[in-house]
């Protein structure tokens, strides 16, 4: 079996020799016809089986593609959820800091700044204005804190990804050098 169509080639060669030598009989032609019929029947069955298996592979490929699309969509949703979770955690952290700062400012204003202003300036509305400015300032302070924490968390993620990439590269280089050494040996 030097080729996939060895049997078919042998039949053809054999009959070609008979034609060249003009030595074929009526029985030879009938035998050739029968062999041709047998080979055709075989080819038909092979095609039928191949088509069936090909269809099965095609169905499997379609299912894999659908699953892949589903995974991509779920991954996007997961990333979105993780992003929201990170923002929520960062917001909570910023709120805690801001709440502490507010209490400190309120206490210091009530104990020191308020009485001092009342003593030196004597205008009650000035204290109200100051309180308003502090409240607006605190809101901006919260936003600044949130931005700082978000960017810090993102930097941490990027650092982690880069570390993983470096590790993968190192493994690849090690693997390549080991395979080179083994092939050289």
């Amino acid at each position: 079996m030097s080729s996939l169509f060895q049997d078919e080639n042998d039949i053809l060669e054999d009959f070609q020799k008979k034609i060249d030598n003009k030595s074929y009989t009526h029985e030879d032609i009938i035998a050739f016809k029968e062999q041709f019929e047998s080979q055709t029947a075989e080819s038909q069955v092979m095609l039928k089986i191949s088509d069936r298996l090909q269809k099965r592979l095609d169905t499997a490929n379609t299912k894999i593609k659908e699953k892949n699309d589903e995974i991509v969509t779920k991954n996007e949703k997961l990333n979105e959820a993780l992003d929201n979770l990170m923002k929520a955690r960062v917001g909570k952290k910023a709120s805690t800091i801001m709440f502490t700062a507010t209490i400190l400012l309120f206490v210091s204003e009530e104990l020191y700044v308020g009485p001092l202003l009342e003593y030196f300036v004597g205008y009650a509305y000035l204290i109200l204005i100051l309180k308003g400015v502090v409240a607006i300032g605190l809101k901006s302070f919260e936003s600044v804190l949130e931005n700082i924490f978000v960017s810090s968390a993102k930097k941490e993620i990027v650092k982690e990804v880069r570390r993983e990439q470096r590790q993968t590269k190192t493994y690849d280089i090690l693997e390549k050098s080991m395979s080179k050494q083994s092939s050289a040996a």
Partner: protein
Amino acid sequence: MENLSIEPSSLTPYVFFDTQTGILELKGRSSPDNAVIFYEQLMSFFDKYYELDPRDITINVGLEYFNTSSLKCIFQILRRIKDGADKSACALEINWFYEEDDEDMLETGEDISALLDIEFNFYSDSVGIS
């Protein structure tokens, strides 16, 4: 004659023929780059087998997948074994194993059985082919 043993790979099936019991096992996946080269060794082995010490043969086929070239080679081998068995007056039994619910593989076995003009025994799992 020594047993024939070919370890499986991701592209080629497990092949084992026990010359004492006359059981040939062919299982796994078959989609080698060159099916002719892979199955040539089986073809030559069985040519020798029927020349030297022909006995009854039982073939257990449990394939999950095979490409078209492998199908042609497997068919040629089965036909060669059938011709050898007929000439040597030896019995030939073919057991076709397929995974449960794998109607395609069952129909494939039925088609090959009809083409070879041999009755196959069909089993709907891989029990019995170890």
